[in-house]
C-alpha cells in the first residue's frame, strides 16, 4: 500500500512534468501556425486540391456568403456546398478585408483556435482511455505497479500528433473548413468518453458533436454505432470473456467488487437518453437551417445541394480520393449503379462486420470508421487523414506491436510528397496527364488501407496476447 502511494506521488510529479511539456509544445504549434499564416504569399495553399475540396474550401464559402448577401441562394451556381450554419458563422469573417481582398487572417484564427480546442479535448479523451487501460490491466492482474511506467500518456501523444501533424497544419493554414469538422467529431467522442460525475456521461455534448459533424460532412453519421457502444457498454476494454475467467480464478472479495463493475449490462437508459438528445439537436439544427434558407428554397434545397452533392459525386475535379477519375470515365447509364455500389460497399462490408468483431473497443471502431470514410469519401482531403491519424495515436499502448510501421510511414511520406509533383506535371507542365495524379491517389489509398488493416490486426493480436497472458496466469 505504502509502495503504491509512493508510486502515485512519483506519477503525479511525472504527470505534471508531462503536462508542462504538452503545453509548451502546443503553444509552439500555435506559433508555428501563425508564422505560416503571416507569410502565405509564396505558396498558394488554399488552391491545392489536396487541402480544399468543393465541400471544405473557404473560397467557395466566401462566394456563397457573397451570393447570400446579394439575396441570392448561396447554393446557386454550384459554388458552395457546405452547411448554411457555417455560412452564417464564418461568412462575416470572410468579408472584412483590407484593400478589396478578403481577409483570411480572421478565419485562420478561427481554425487555429478550433485546432487547439480539438487537441485539448483529444487529450482529455486520451487520459480517460489511458485510465481505463490501466484499470483493465490491473483487473486482469497483468499489470504490476512497477511496470506501470511502461504505459504511455496516450492523450498527450494523440493531442501532439494532432497538433504537429503536417496534414493538420496544412489544412489549418490552407483555409479549408476541415478543422471545424474535425472538432465536431472530437467533441462527440469527448462527450461520450468523459464523465461529468461518476456515471453520468456528457450525453448531450456527444449528441451535439455527432449531429454537427454529420451536418457538416455527412460521413461521420457512421459514428453513431461506436457512440452507442461507448454509452451502452463503456470504454474500450479487453473482451469481456477475459474478465469472467479472472473472476472465476480469484474468488477474493475485494477483486469481486471490481470485476462486478466490469459486468455492466448494456445501459439502455443512457442510450435512450442519447437518442433523445440526437433527436433534439437534429431538430434544432434543421430548424436553424430552414430559418436561414427560408427565401432560398428551404431545407429541400439544402439537402439536395449538400448531401445530394456528396452522395452523387457531382464534382469531378481532381482530389486525392479514388472516385473522381472513375466517375469521369464511367458511362452515364452505369453511373447510378456504380454510385449505389460504392456507397453501399462501405456500409455493408465495413461497418457491420467491424462493429461485431470489435464491439468491446468502441473508440477504436470510431477510428476505423473515420479512416475508412476518409479513404472512400467522395471529396477527401488531408484534413480527414489528420483526424484519424491522431485518433490512432490514442491507442499507442495497444498498438505497440503494429507490423510494417516503417514501411507504411515511408509510404505516407512518399505519396504525400508525390501528390503536388504529379499535380504539377499534369496541370502546369502538361507533360503528364490525369493518370499520373490518379495513380498517386490510388497509391495513397492503398497505404491508407494497409495502415487500417495493420492497426486492426495489431489490435486483435493485442487482445489475443492478453488472452494468452491471462490463461498462463490461471495455469500458474
Amino acid at each position, binding site marked *: 500500500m505504502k509502495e503504491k502511494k509512493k508510486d502515485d506521488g512519483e506519477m503525479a510529479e511525472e504527470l505534471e512534468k508531462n503536462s508542462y511539456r504538452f503545453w509548451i509544445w502546443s503553444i509552439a504549434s500555435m506559433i508555428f501556425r501563425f508564422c505560416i499564416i503571416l507569410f502565405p504569399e509564396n*505558396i*498558394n495553399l488554399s488552391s491545392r486540391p489536396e487541402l480544399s475540396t468543393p465541400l471544405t474550401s473557404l473560397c467557395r464559402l466566401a462566394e456563397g456568403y457573397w451570393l447570400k448577401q446579394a439575396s441570392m441562394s448561396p447554393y446557386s451556381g454550384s459554388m458552395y456546398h457546405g452547411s448554411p450554419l457555417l455560412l452564417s458563422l464564418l461568412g462575416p469573417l470572410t468579408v472584412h478585408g483590407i484593400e478589396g481582398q478578403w481577409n483570411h487572417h480572421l478565419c485562420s484564427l478561427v481554425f487555429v483556435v478550433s485546432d487547439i480546442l480539438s487537441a485539448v479535448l483529444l487529450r482529455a479523451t486520451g487520459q480517460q482511455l489511458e485510465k481505463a487501460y490501466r484499470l483493465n490491466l490491473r483487473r486482469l492482474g497483468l499489470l504490476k505497479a512497477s511496470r506501470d511506467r511502461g504505459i504511455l500518456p496516450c492523450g498527450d501523444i494523440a493531442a501532439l500528433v494532432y497538433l504537429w501533424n503536417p496534414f493538420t497544419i496544412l489544412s489549418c493554414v490552407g483555409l479549408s473548413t476541415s478543422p471545424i469538422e474535425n472538432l465536431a467529431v472530437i467533441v462527440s467522442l469527448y462527450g461520450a468518453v468523459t464523465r461529468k460525475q461518476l456515471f453520468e456521461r456528457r450525453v448531450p455534448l456527444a449528441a451535439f458533436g455527432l449531429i454537427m459533424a454529420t451536418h457538416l460532412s455527412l460521413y461521420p453519421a457512421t459514428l453513431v454505432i461506436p457512440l452507442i457502444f461507448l454509452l451502452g457498454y463503456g470504454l474500450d476494454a479487453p473482451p469481456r470473456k477475459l474478465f469472467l475467467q479472472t473472476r472465476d480464478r480469484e474468488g477474493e472479495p475485494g477483486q469481486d467488487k471490481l470485476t462486478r463493475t466490469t459486468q455492466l449490462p448494456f445501459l439502455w437508459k443512457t442510450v435512450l437518453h442519447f437518442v433523445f438528445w440526437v433527436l433534439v439537436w437534429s431538430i434544432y439544427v434543421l430548424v436553424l437551417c430552414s430559418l436561414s434558407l427560408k427565401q432560398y428554397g428551404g431545407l429541400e434545397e439544402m439537402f439536395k445541394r449538400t448531401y445530394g452533392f456528396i452522395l452523387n459525386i457531382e464534382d469531378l475535379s481532381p482530389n486525392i480520393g479514388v472516385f473522381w477519375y472513375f466517375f469521369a470515365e464511367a458511362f452515364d447509364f452505369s453511373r447510378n449503379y456504380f454510385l449505389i455500389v460504392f456507397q453501399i460497399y462501405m456500409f455493408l462490408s465495413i461497418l457491420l462486420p467491424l462493429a461485431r468483431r470489435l464491439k468491446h473497443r468502441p473508440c477504436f471502431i470510431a477510428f476505423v470508421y473515420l479512416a475508412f470514410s476518409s479513404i472512400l469519401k467522395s471529396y477527401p482531403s488531408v484534413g480527414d487523414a489528420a483526424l484519424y491519424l491522431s485518433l490512432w495515436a490514442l491507442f499507442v499502448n495497444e498498438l*505497440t506491436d503494429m507490423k510494417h510501421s*516503417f*514501411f507504411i510511414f*515511408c*509510404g505516407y511520406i512518399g505519396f504525400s510528397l508525390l501528390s503536388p509533383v*504529379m499535380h504539377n*506535371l499534369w496541370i*502546369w507542365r502538361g507533360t503528364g496527364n490525369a493518370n499520373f495524379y490518379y495513380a498517386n491517389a490510388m497509391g495513397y489509398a492503398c497505404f491508407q488501407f494497409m495502415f487500417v488493416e495493420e492497426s486492426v490486426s495489431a489490435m486483435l493480436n493485442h487482445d489475443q496476447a492478453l488472452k494468452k497472458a491471462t490463461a498462463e496466469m490461471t495455469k500458474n
Partner: protein
Amino acid sequence: MAADNRYEEEEEVRTDDGSPITKPRPIVRLGIFLVAHSPVFSVVFSAAGVLALLLLPLLAKNTYISENALMPGSARSMLSNRDASDGSKLVKDIKNFRLNHEGQVQRLIGKYMSEMVAEVYYQKFQPEGNQFHPLHFFSGPASYTLLGNVSCASYGVNVVGIIRAPRGDGKESIVLVTPYDFINGGDYEDLSLGIVSSLFSLLSRVTWLSKDIIWLVADSRYGDYRPVAAWLAEYHTPSFKVSDLLKCDELNTADNFRRAGTVAAALILKVDGRSERFEDILSIYADASNGQMPNLDLINVVNYLAVHRQGFHVKVEKVVSLLSSSWLKIVGEIFEAVGKVANTLNPDWKFGIPAAEYIEGSATLASSLYSQALGIPTGPHGAFRDYQVDAITLKISPGFPPDSKARQHDFFLRGSQLLEGTIRSVNNLLEKFHQSFFLYVLTSPSKFISVGVYMIAFALLVASLPMVAASLYVDGCKALTKSTHNSAENFKSWKWLDAAKQVFALHLLGFIVTLLPYFICQVPGQHSPRNRSIMWGTTSSLLLVTFVTIPGCSPFSSRLHGTNWAILKSVTISAAFIGLCLMSIINFATAEIGALLLVPTCLLAQPIKPALRSRRVKSLLGAFCSMVLVTIGFPVIFFAITKGLVGEGLVGLSLGGEFWTWLESLWAWKSATYLYIGMVHLPCWLLCVCILFHPS
C-alpha cells in the same frame, strides 16, 4: 520499398509463434531471397544501372513523325525570289538606318511589318533582377508579379507584328521570335530578321493559313530570355494597371497590346557567327527549365525539313571534351565487337553501332543530361514551356561572310523555306502537340531515347536501396533486441522512431540551409559572391553545430538512446530513395546524376572505427572507399571536380564565389535542382558522414 522487409518480418513471426510454417507465396520468397543476399544484389544492380546508362546510346531509336496531320514537306514551297529580296531589302535598310543614326530601329521594323498588312504594336518591359524563388517550381506562371518601382533608365521595347489568318478564327496562333539587339546588333543578327521578313512577306499573301502568325522581334539587350518571358507574361496574364513604363518615351505603346489566341508552337530563330564548315549549320536547342522538353514531333519536323529539303547540316549540342576521350572509345569498341558477335550468332540482333557513332551519341547524351540536370533553359524557348507551348530555338550558323550578297539571297530563301514548311505543318494541326514524346533525351538530331528506356537505368541504380534498407532494418532490430532487452520489448516495431527523428532533424536543417540564401541576399550592402558564400557557410555550420548539440536530434547522441547505426542507415537510405524517386519524376537527369553520387555513398557508408580497429584489408579498403565517396559527394567539391573535368581548370580560393554564382543562377531560373541539392542531397550526405563517424 520496405516491402521486402515486410516479408522478412512475416517469416520471422511465423517461426516465433511455433505455428506450422506454411510455404510463402513465390513473390514473397523472391523478396526474402533478395533481402537476404542484399550485398551481392546491390552490387549487381548498381553495376547494371551504370552499364545501362552506358548502353543508352545503343538503345536510341530513330525519330519518326508521330502525328499524321503534320505531313512535313508534302506541300511545295511557295516562297519566291521576290520574298527573299524583300528580306535583303530590310537588312540593307537596317544597315543604312544604323549608319545614319536615324532613330529607333524598332520603328523601321514596325514600318516594314505594317507594309506587309500586319498589325503592329510595341511592348515595353523591364529587365528583372535576380530573385530568390525556388518554390515557384510548384506554382504556375500565374504567380508572376510585376515590379513595383519602375525606372526609365533601363527598359526594352519589343516589336510585334500579327498576320491574321484568312482561314482562321483567331483562336490559335504560331509565334516566330527573332531576338535582336536594337542598339548594337551585329550583321549576323540582321540576317535572322531578313529570313523572317522574307517569310512574313509570303505569309501575308497566302490563303492556306489557318492560325495567326505572330512575329516577335525581342529586344535582346537584356538577354534573350527576358524579353520573351515579359511578352508571354503580358500575353497570358493581362494586367489592368497602367504601367509607369508607358510614360518613359515618345514611342506610344499604350493600350494596343494585341493577342491572337492560344499559341500552338513557337520557333525562335537566331543567326549566329560563321560556321567552321563551308555549309550552313543548323543547331537545335530544346531544353526548357527543369529538364522539360518540347514535343518531339516539333523537333522531328524541323529536322526532317532541314535535312531532306533544305540541306542544312543539323546538329544538337554535345560535350566536346568527350569526343576525344579514350575510355569512351574503348567502351564503344567493346560494344561494337559485342554487337558484331551477336550479329553473327543471330542476324536479327542488330544492336551494335560503330564506335565513332557511339562516341558521338554519348557526347550528345551527356550534354543533354547536363543541360536537363541544371534545369536552366538553353534559350528563350524555355519561357514558352512555362505556358505549355512547344518551342525550340533554331540557331543557324551561315557558311559565308555576312557581306557576301550572292549567298545571302540563297540563304534567305532556304532559311525561310524551312520556316515555311514548319509553319505549314503546324498549321495543319487540329489539336496541340500531344502525339509524340515529351520525356526523352536526344542522342543526335534524329535519334532519341524515350522515358521507358532511360528510366531502366535509373531504376536499376536505385533498386538496391530498398533491399539494403530492408536487410539493415532487420539486422538493426535484431541487434537492438539483443542489446536492450527490456525497453525493446515494449516497442517491437517502433525502433526506427529515434533514427527517423535524427533523419528528420537533418532534413529540416537542409531545408533551412536551402532557404538561407534568401536572407543572405537581404543583407544590406554590396557583397561579393565570395563573401556571401562565406556567410552562407558559416551560418550553415553554426546551425549544424546547434542541431548536433540538441539532445535527441543529434545522430551522435544515439548511444544514449539505444539506436544503432544500422537502423540509422536504413532510415537514411529510405529517405534517399524517396528523394531520388521524387526527383526522377520532376527532373530525370538530376535524379540520375544524383543517384550516381548518392547511391554508392549511402550503400558504402559504415562506421570507420570498427574497421580501423579490425585492421583487416577488406574493411580498411571499404572505409577508404566510403571516405573518398563522401568527399566527392560534398556539393562544393563535386562542383569543383566537374569544373575540372569540363576543362575549366581547378580554381583555388575563388571556388566559394563561383559556387555561389552557380547556385544563384540555379535559383534565379527556378531550377528544382537547387531544391534537390539542399533538401535531399545535402541531408543524406550529412547522414552518411554521421554514420561514418558513428561511435559504435
